[in-house]
């Protein structure tokens, strides 16, 4: 595991430098720069096809950018595979749910603890010593920090595919949190949720960002402008792979170019409120 010095609030936790990513002749990302500070909720907005999810995939390591650098906690991670980046404290949720439908909620979340389980096959086969201690620790963490936070006590033993969509989204967040991340990528966590679920999810995002126990930096890709403008510290606006703005929510809302490119499309992306 790669050792990196502790970051303080306000230090750069994630930096993208001139990242380019093309699929054939389509340039999904054309020279993106991004600077995410520790402790922030940093939103990335833009119309469909702007390159937001591609950017997430680059950060997370699913895609390798053709050009440019990605720094996680000051360390260049271009060459690192996704699971190595996870070990650095990076976690994510997906726009389209990626849960294991046949497994229970609890098992799905437990899976997220995988990088923290270090005991070997022999200790595991007899459930003594290290394995036992790890399991107890892991159970405590999942129950006290995640299930309680996300209020999913009543569904912990239900198979994930049986749950309504809104709850599945919550479970996905739970799995991402099980990694105990420092930085979490949230790809449209509010899409497809009803108003009540949106309010709940927005509260959970604030909780994991602000609560002393968590203090997770969030990179949020989201279309719900009401929520984005309410909870973000900083907003990046993308359009056709190009960054057109980087600023506070107030700046972004006041920028005529952004309004034209994106916010102007009231009907398509208007907030639910």
């Amino acid at each position, binding site marked *: 595991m790669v050792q990196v010095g502790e970051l303080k609030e306000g230090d750069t936790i994630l930096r993208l430098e001139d990242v380019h990513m093309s699929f054939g002749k389509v340039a999904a990302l054309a020279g993106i720069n991004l600077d995410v500070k520790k402790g922030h909720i940093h939103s990335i907005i833009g119309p469909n096809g702007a390159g937001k999810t591609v950017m997430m995939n680059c950060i997370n390591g699913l895609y390798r950018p053709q050009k440019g650098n990605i720094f996680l906690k000051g360390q260049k991670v271009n060459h690192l595979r996704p699971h190595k980046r996870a070990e650095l404290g990076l976690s994510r949720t997906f726009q389209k749910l990626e849960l294991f439908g046949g497994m229970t909620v609890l098992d799905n979340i437990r899976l997220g603890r995988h990088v923290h389980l270090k005991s070997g096959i022999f200790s595991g086969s007899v459930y003594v010593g290290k394995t036992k201690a790890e399991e107890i620790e892991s159970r405590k963490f999942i129950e*006290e920090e995640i299930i309680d936070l996300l209020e999913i006590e009543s569904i912990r033993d239900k198979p994930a595919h049986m749950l309504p969509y809104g709850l599945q989204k919550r479970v996905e967040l739970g799995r991402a949190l099980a990694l105990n991340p420092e930085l979490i990528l949230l790809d449209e966590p509010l899409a497809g949720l009803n108003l009540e679920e949106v309010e709940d999810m927005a509260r959970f995002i604030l909780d994991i960002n602000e609560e002393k126990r968590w203090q997770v930096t969030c990179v949020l890709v989201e279309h719900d402008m009401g929520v984005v403008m309410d909870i973000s510290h900083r907003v990046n606006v993308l359009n056709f792979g190009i960054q057109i703005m980087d600023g506070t929510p107030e700046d972004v809302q006041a920028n005529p170019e952004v309004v034209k490119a994106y916010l102007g499309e009231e009907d398509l992306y208007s907030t639910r409120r």
Partner: protein
Amino acid sequence: MSGSGIEITKELTIPKLFLRQCKKYGKDKVAMREKEFGIWIPFTWQDYYENVKYLTLGMVSLGLKPGDKVAMIGDNRPEGLWAEMAALCAGGIGVWLFQDCMMEEVKYIIDHSDAKIFVGETQEEVDKAILIKDDCPKLETVIWDDPKGMRNYHQEYLISIRKVQDLGREFEKKEPDFFEKRINEGHGDDVCLLFYTSGTTALPKGALLSHWNMLTMGKNLMAVDPCYDTDDFVSYLPFAWIGEQMMSISCGLQMGYTLNFPEEPETAQENIREIGPHVMFAPPRMYEGMTRQVQVKYIDSTWIKRKAYELSTKVGYHVADLQFDKRPVPVGWRILHWIGYALVQKKLKDHLGMSRLRNSYTGGAAMGPDHFRFFHALGVNLKQIYGQTEVAGISIVHRDGDIKFDTVGTPIPETEVKITEDGEIITKSPSVFLGYYKNDEATQKTLVDGWLYSGDRGFIDEDGHLVVFDRSKDVMTLSDGRPFSPQYLETRLKFSPFIQEAWAIGDKRDYITAVMCIDYSVVGKWADDKKLNYTSYHELSQKPEVYQLVKEQIEEANKDLPAPARIARFVNLYKVFDADDEELTRTSKLRRAFVGERYKDIVDALYSDRDVVHMDTKITYEDGREQRIRTDLHVEKINVGD
């Protein structure tokens, strides 16, 4: 002497009893359990004692004086009970609010009760308190116990329950004997609880109950059906409901049984199964829910399981009916019953968490005979009770071996029940309340010469059992001049798993009609199986196929009714009746006058020749948002014959 060996005197108070029980059981016995983080966490009587003691002293150092009110709101949890007990130990008066109370109700009750301290559970309750704080000048302190979401709250009147207990520890250093001294100052005639009854017509009224009321209630119920200190009870119904207070405080404290608190309200059913309580008391709605659960699972299961269920239930019903009639059960039926029980009912009871159940009670509203027979056929000793907040719980209960499903039983010890000339049920007992808080007019109407006037109409049958007909003001007159109970009709309709709520109309009209609310999950499942498309409750309720389904359910219920009492027309409502819309009380009783006014258009249409009624109305969500609804509802006619 009560079954617990404790003599209930006028000197005794709930806190004195609490002290005595804590000393008796100490560290050796579990007083309560709470499921938290997936594990049942026990609290011994010693833990109970310490938590209550420091909370009491903390409240006293916050300025709580004898007679001051402490308002409490939140789910059932140890901290809730500690807060209540602490308020009583400090000589204060407890006021419980329903968890789902809307702002206006919270404001009214806090202001009317002169509450000085507000104990909430989470951020949600604290938010309510903050919003009403300016309108309730007598409210001084707001206590919370769950830190989640509280990080950005810095109002100086907010304090966590742990901090209050720390204040208590400080206080103890100064006055080490204060706790016991204050408790010993109490007297049985002191007021201990102020209960706001959710009126079906007007603003809530605050009923004042004394320690003596509560303790005699527990003693007299336990004299009929004793519990033991080895028993388990699951506390999951609102503390603001007198039935829960009766079981958790009046009986629980006297008998010393273990109270179990579910993890979350949504997990209650599952947690009940894990605990397997020995005694249960719930309003009919809970039992109706269980019945529906069994019926739906039955519909979904395989052929062989359905057959096994049908056969065993048939035997169960037969044996239950023999027992109702107090006739001996022939040996052949006994053997069949035993086989059916071993193969089917035992398992079913286990799933419902009723395996160890000795007595289960239902009260608070009317339960239909169909539901009642259903549980007896299952081998559950379900008993009706009758009571009200004003009598600290109940006055009438069924006795073992003397159960009739159309009655509510006979009076408990020290209780007299009579019927006035007008047919009103009146009660006299040591548990009859002291009066309504700041409402002499209502007190004078309700309490006459020590008799409690219930406002319910009923009669006493040839076996001395009380039969509760209905609320006096709800009794309908049929077209042939006979009186009839709409509640009876409604409970019959609700036996169908597809029907969640029903409202029968027809006072002094030519025929009876009903407004029906389908059960969204059950009818939704039924529609899925039939490949019917729908997007919302509203759309589903208006499907012709669903109308046909509901019609069949009504026809089934109509079968056993005299012709003038049969339902001739109905409408499927576009929503379910809800307490947030003021259509139900917080204990889920229909507020007839209110719905009559609100759905006047529907009622008019039901008594006209139109077959469509246009609705334009608004509904209120739990967070207070409103949505306008414009729709056409179909009026369906049913042939009722003669």
